[in-house]
């Protein structure tokens, strides 16, 4: 058990090693496998970028699920799958939502990898915005409009779930 707590910590520690340190090999692999400028490359990378935080957040939310109700479900003969789907998932739903929100924010906002690894086809909104500035930089109002439109989805999602955001960001520190 002790060892698996260390594994959990390893998850978080991968976050300390900037993914940028592996940017060149990732670029070369992407180029050779024809995945440059593909949205799926970013999907894979962003998943791995947000995975550590997501694991830790989910862990702290799942730790709040009382062990008693799981034991009760077991005694009543529920299998693991049933327990997870019918008992744990509903209780942990706000936590799942908060985790999804955080991952959404960081993926939506990411610029560096999107800029280096994508171009015309799979450019994400931050990439579009930087390009938009080079072409329309003097039209300040247009740039502001673009910035607002791009930020809007994150703002709405964040406002809707701000209570959960407070809880979710404190990761394992909240019991």
């Amino acid at each position, binding site marked *: 058990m002790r060892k698996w707590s260390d594994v959990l910590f390893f998850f978080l520690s991968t976050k300390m090693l900037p993914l940028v*340190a592996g*940017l060149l090999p990732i670029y070369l692999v992407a180029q050779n496998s024809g995945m440059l*400028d593909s949205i799926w490359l970013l999907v894979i990378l962003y998943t791995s970028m947000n*995975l550590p935080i997501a694991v830790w957040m989910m862990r702290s939310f799942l730790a709040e699920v009382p*062990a008693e109700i799981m034991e009760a479900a077991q005694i009543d003969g529920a299998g693991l799958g049933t327990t997870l789907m019918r008992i744990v998932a509903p209780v942990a739903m706000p936590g799942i939502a908060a985790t999804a929100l955080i991952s959404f924010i960081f993926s939506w906002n990411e610029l560096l990898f999107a800029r280096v690894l*994508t171009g015309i086809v799979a450019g994400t909104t931050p990439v579009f915005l930087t390009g938009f500035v080079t072409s329309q930089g003097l039209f*300040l109002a247009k740039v502001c409009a673009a910035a607002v439109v791009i930020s809007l989805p*994150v*703002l709405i999602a964040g406002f809707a779930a701000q209570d959960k955001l407070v809880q979710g960001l404190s990761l*394992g520190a909240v019991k």
Partner: protein
Amino acid sequence: MPTATEPTRRSPRARDTVPAPGRRAARTRRRQRAMDWARRAPLLPALVFLIIVTQLPFVATVVISFLHWNALAPENRGFAAFDNYKAVFTDPAMRASMGTTVVLTVTVVLVSLLLGLVLALLLDRSFRGRGIVRTLLITPFLVVPVASALLWKHALYNASYGLINGSLTWIWGLFGSDSPPQPDWMTDSPLAAVEVSLIWQWTPFMMLILLAGLQSRATDAIEAARMDGAPAFDIFRYLTLPHLRRYLELAALLGTVYVVQNFDAVFTITSGGLGTANLPPTRPASAPRSACTATASSSARAPASAPGRR
């Protein structure tokens, strides 16, 4: 980590409470073991995925860093030992950018942590319109960093039409002066300009974590202390602060992790014109096919410099 030992605490208790004579005990033990594995197995795919995507490229980076590899002569590859590292460490721009990164990170994390603490303490009181205030305070964290960096650069810092210099003109105008100071913020103090925008962006993050900490603290001890007439500062110093320590550490840790890797603000506001000129902006990202030469020719520098700076 505080919760790290929790599963260890829980499982023995679960085992103890089961009445366990004979065969039934064996069955429960088997079941317990199955449960343990059920708990571990779901982590494995994520772990493998994470190692492949984030750790292996870094290993590859380390390997490449010991090679001679020039994109203009790709067939001419060979072992270079520490030559590349020598080149990196004798490059003054590299040393300067490392220093900048450290200063930037420390300043941003400390200041936003302090501001976040103050804001969290204020938000922890109940007052009318608290929900709106909190919503507004969270906003900087939600705005797309590139967008906010752009607004800082063009709408606030700009020397001729920026909001800051506009305000200065207005204030000086109030006192009848025609020559207000109009500093060019981005060229006079580029690092401070980036820092301020980053502090603005990360303060809500710190505030949210500390707010969660404040809301989880037990109120009875504080009430008792207040009853006994303890001064507000002492309550903060001896009750609130020790409770918040874990949250402060967590906020500082996460903040550091994200700010060290910051790219958007530096890239947008100064385009690396601080000596923070890091590798990524030098790549023609808009033309991926031709970018290969630029990427590979800088490969000698990239591997060693990337982990150090961002």
